[in-house]
């Protein structure tokens, strides 16, 4: 184990807990850090700086921001790729690996890629691999192997992820000085306020930056502001990853996604320090000044031993003081400005003997072998915009801090429709327009003076409190000078003849890549982005947008203030699929008899949200079980759970009129005590659902609907009647009724044992009639139906007593040899009877005439939904019709659903259902054929698996018991 030679003495306020050590490994080497250390900070303490290799040239990369804002720190965990090493905390036993290398991170066999950079020009994907034709096929596997970041462990343990809603008067995003001040103000006004901070601790810049000469102000203000947060709900380590309409905020904290609704939002998201552009500006050891400050203040880690600072603002000088205090020698401060501003911090730096070179820049960084670390900085005198004269001092160093400007973290504001432009005066992106319902404060708003930032936070809180109707008190004052100027240098870009002057670290893009993209005609900023891929990597342009806009303006001669910037969309940062998925809520509906099916060994299958028994018995015996169940219905008696059928009560004086308008058949004269088939078509005339209508009273129909269709049928009934205004009430009672169908020649004798208050004789209770009575003492609705083609009764009872009904029926049928049958046997039986199943034997275009259902349409009524559309289509002529077919030769394989019916090369239709029927001793099925093929006896060609053509013969439906004698007995 190496020693943590860069660890500084403990200081109060740091984020690590020195009393608690944590052991982890990186690339196979063991390290020890402290609780609260990030992977990157713990490694930095051990002087280990290379965290990854770059995407294209495999260049070593290290700490850049220490704020989770760059792709340099992406590392691999056993179960998780692309983890940000500078924000992910270490834990005991954590095994961390690098990404994007062959061999080892320190010695990558792919590093030679850098030598080829001349041959990997901008747009190289588009240019290189697509010529000659077919080249991509050759290149793709190679590119794919090299592309992408990290590895997904497909065997990773499934974590527990979930979501939660939340509601607040005001949500403040950003726990820096502005955000804390805003939240405190809202709480003081009595508001319900949430403060969201991305880092594990509050503070923002107060947690790392220096605002005064002796470095005490930040701590003092932080304590003061924290103390004011009484009544504020604080979430740290939480990232608001987007803004959605009506202030809907997705906030990720750990494995939970909070979906927060705010009446008003205060954005105090701060700003992101921007890198400079010069030769080798990506070497490990070159970082943002704020990153060096974070290492020192938050983690107690010395970022280097001898530093050079390139700056254009006071923060560079503050960093110099911090470094010096941490025991790091400061070789030089290169101030890009000819005339640096004065101020307490600048003066203190000079007073501390730190050498300052005004009008100078870092022009070139020199690397140790293999580009593993910076070893020196070549400085140069600036002679013009982006130009400098070589030949000035070279400073040996192991750290270069860049402090030449900021860019507002405008992303959430942009999601909300806020406008961001470039302000020439401050040389920064600035917010031009803030949408309603949002207030901004702090450096997002271009404010950098600490007192002004806090005052602005108070003002934003006051504004928010007022907006949500709280007593907000007197309007706070905000100073006029908010410190916007002298923060950002207008042109910290120094292109180098040898390139490696990176403007986008994620994508290894250099100055000339942008220039070339524009030369090739991609002049609009959105086109520059797409062609060059600038800003399209994991850090989403947080460090490249500003430079690319500046370069684009320069190359095209456009006004930088007018050029705009690329669109920013959610999410702000990468989010895992687990977070998006959360708990998988998949409602499952059980019938009242569900557990009885399980006890009987049923194989369950989903039907819509319901679970239904497919058949009873072991999977290995599937076909035999289905066959035996079906044969038992035909010869004996079977029982099936039909509880999943939809049930709708249509009640009121206009009940029959309503039925007449909804469904295709005629219902006005349907006698009480009888049922009638219902067929529902949509407005285009396409079959949508079917069932039966039972008229229990003049004003009362009980209508069944298909298992999967009932919710839509119910909704569309209510929608229709919102327009028709008929005197009728529609109620969905699907879950209120359980039901069974007892079917088979012995069903009457079995039912008679448990149903004594209804005359079950064929004369008294005929086919298609309905009755109410009791079955096994349970109040029941009885329907004589014939779906499976045998004598049978559907019995509908209150679902609370469904299980009792099931038990009673099985018991009553024991002597008769009753056995339950499942959906598969039922499908076979109904097919033998030629009954269609909606959406299996029909599709999204089937009108009744195509499915042989013309008989179910009443021609005498003035209207039903879909009627006019059907008339028009029938007049035009249908192009296919559903027919029954049989294949007598059982040695021929049975066709399957969706096998095509063909005529020569022409497709005329498809098989919709087919089964080898044990009851009929042949294969039967339904298929769409051409209208001239519908005559019984016509031979049709069916193309089955492997392209083989088999012959079927059209026959008249039904296949079984054509006179219906068995179901009507």
């Amino acid at each position, binding site marked *: 184990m190496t020693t943590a030679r860069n660890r500084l003495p403990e200081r109060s306020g740091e984020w690590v807990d020195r009393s608690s050590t944590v052991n982890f490994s990186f690339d196979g080497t063991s390290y020890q850090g402290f609780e609260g250390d990030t992977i990157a900070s713990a490694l930095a303490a051990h002087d280990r700086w290379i965290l990854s290799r770059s995407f294209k040239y495999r260049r070593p990369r290290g700490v850049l921001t220490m704020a989770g804002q760059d792709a340099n720190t992406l590392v691999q965990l056993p179960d998780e790729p692309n983890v940000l090493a500078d924000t992910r905390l270490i834990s005991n036993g954590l095994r961390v690996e690098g990404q994007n290398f062959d061999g080892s991170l320190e010695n990558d066999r792919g590093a030679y890629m850098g030598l080829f950079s001349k041959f990997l020009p901008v747009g190289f994907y588009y240019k290189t691999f697509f010529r000659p034709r077919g080249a991509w096929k050759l290149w793709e596997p190679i590119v794919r192997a090299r592309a992408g970041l990290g590895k997904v462990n497909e065997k990773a343990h499934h974590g527990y992820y979930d979501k939660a809603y939340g509601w607040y008067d005001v949500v403040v995003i950003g726990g820096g000085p502005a955000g804390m001040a805003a939240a405190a103000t809202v709480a003081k006004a009595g508001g319900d306020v949430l403060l969201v901070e991305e880092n594990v601790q509050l503070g923002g810049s107060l947690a790392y930056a220096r605002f005064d000469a002796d470095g005490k102000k930040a701590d003092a203000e932080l304590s003061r502001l924290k103390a004011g947060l009484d009544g504020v709900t604080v979430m740290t380590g939480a990232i608001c990853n987007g803004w*959605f*309409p*009506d202030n*809907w905020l997705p906030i990720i904290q750990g494995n939970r996604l909070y*979906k927060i*609704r705010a009446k008003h939002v205060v954005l105090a998201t701060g700003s992101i320090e921007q890198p400079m552009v010069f030769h080798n500006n990506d070497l490990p050891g070159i970082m943002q000044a704020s990153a060096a400050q974070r290492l020192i203040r938050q983690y107690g880690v010395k970022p280097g031993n001898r530093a050079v600072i390139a700056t254009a603002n006071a923060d560079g000088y503050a960093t110099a003081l911090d470094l010096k205090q941490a025991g790091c020698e400061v070789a030089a401060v290169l101030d890009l400005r000819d005339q640096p501003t004065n101020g307490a911090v600048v003066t203190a730096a000079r007073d501390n003997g730190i050498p300052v070179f005004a009008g100078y820049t870092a022009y070139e960084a020199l690397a140790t072998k293999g580009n593993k670390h910076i070893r020196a900085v070549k400085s140069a005198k600036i002679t013009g915009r982006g130009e400098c004269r070589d030949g000035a001092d070279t400073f040996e160093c192991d750290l270069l801090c860049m402090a030449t400007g900021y860019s507002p973290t405008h992303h959430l504001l942009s999601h909300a429709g806020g406008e961001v432009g470039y302000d020439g005066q401050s040389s920064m992106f600035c917010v031009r327009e803030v949408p309603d319902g949002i207030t901004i404060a702090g450096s997002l708003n271009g404010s950098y003076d600490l007192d002004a930032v806090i005052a602005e936070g108070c003002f934003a809180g006051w504004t928010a409190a007022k907006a949500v109707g709280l007593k907000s008190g007197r309007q706070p004052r905000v100073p006029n000078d908010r410190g916007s100027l002298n923060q950002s240098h207008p042109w910290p870009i120094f292109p180098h003849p040898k390139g490696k002057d990176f403007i986008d670290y994620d994508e290894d893009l250099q100055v000339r890549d942008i220039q070339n993209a524009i030369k090739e005609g991609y002049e609009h900023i959105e086109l520059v982005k797409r062609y060059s891929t600038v800003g399209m990597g994991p850090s989403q342009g947080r460090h490249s947008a500003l430079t690319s806009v500046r370069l684009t303006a320069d190359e095209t001669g456009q006004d930088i203030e007018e050029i705009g910037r690329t669109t920013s969309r959610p999410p702000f940062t990468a989010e895992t699929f687990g977070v998006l998925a959360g708990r998988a809520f998949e409602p499952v509906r059980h019938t009242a008899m569900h557990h009885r099916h399980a006890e009987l060994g049923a194989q369950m299958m989903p039907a819509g949200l319901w679970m239904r028994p497919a058949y009873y018995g072991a999977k290995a015996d599937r076909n035999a079980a289905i066959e035996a169940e079906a044969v038992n219905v035909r010869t004996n008696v079977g029982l099936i759970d039909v509880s999943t059928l939809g049930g709708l009560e249509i009640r009121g004086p206009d009940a029959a009129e309503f039925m007449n*308008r909804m469904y295709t058949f005629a219902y006005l004269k349907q006698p009480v005590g009888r049922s009638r088939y219902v067929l529902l078509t949509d*407005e*285009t005339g396409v079959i949508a659902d079917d069932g039966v209508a039972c008229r229990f009273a003049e004003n009362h129909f009980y209508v069944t609907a298909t298992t999967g269709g009932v919710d839509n049928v*119910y*909704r569309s009934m*209510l*929608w229709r009647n*919102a*327009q*028709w*205004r*008929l*005197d009728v009430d529609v109620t*969905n009672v699907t879950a209120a009724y359980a039901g069974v169908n007892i079917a088979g020649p012995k069903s009457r004798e079995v039912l008679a044992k448990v149903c004594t208050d209804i005359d079950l004789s064929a004369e008294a209770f005929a086919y298609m009639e309905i009755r109410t009575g009791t079955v096994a003492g349970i109040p029941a609705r009885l329907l004589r139906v014939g779906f499976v083609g045998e004598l049978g009764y559907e019995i509908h009872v209150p679902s609370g007593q469904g299980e009792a009904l099931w038990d009673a029926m099985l018991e009553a049928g024991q002597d008769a040899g009753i056995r339950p049958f499942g959906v598969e046997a039922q499908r076979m039986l109904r097919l033998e009877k030629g009954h269609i199943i909606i959406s299996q034997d029909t599709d999204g275009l089937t009108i009744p005439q195509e499915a042989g259902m013309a008989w179910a349409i009443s021609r005498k*009524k*003035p*209207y039903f939904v879909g*009627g*006019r*559309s059907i008339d*028009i289509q029938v007049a035009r002529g249908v192009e296919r019709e559903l027919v029954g077919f049989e294949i007598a030769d059982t040695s021929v394989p049975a066709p399957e659903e969706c096998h095509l019916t063909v005529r020569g090369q022409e497709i005329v239709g498809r098989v919709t259902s087919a089964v080898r029927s044990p009851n009929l001793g042949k294969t039967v099925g339904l298929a769409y054929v051409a209208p001239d093929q519908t005559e019984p006896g016509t031979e049709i060609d069916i193309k089955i698996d492997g392209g083989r053509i088999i012959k079927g013969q059209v026959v008249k439906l039904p296949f079984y018991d054509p006179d219906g004698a068995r179901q009507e007995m």
Partner: protein
Amino acid sequence: MKILNCPLNGPRNISEFICAGEVEVEPDPNRCSNAEWAEYIFLHDNDAGVVQEWWCHVPTAYWFIVERNNLTDEILRTFPSTEIFTKRQEYSRPDQEAS
């Protein structure tokens, strides 16, 4: 996520609702031409600007009407459908007296 103010249930996340498209007047199916009927079924105005739409609060299956500016996605008003559909709709066949 947008909030939609249901006349029955008050403001709710819009994920509780479905939209059934613009409120359109059905032509008399027994007297209009094929072209008029086809237009009603298949062609929608798709006007840019303020439109009236059918929305349904799914948990209560409650249908109502939303006035929405589809250029800005601003919801201007929501109201019960009885404001527009005030009386019983009648149909009659061509050989019967139109009511």
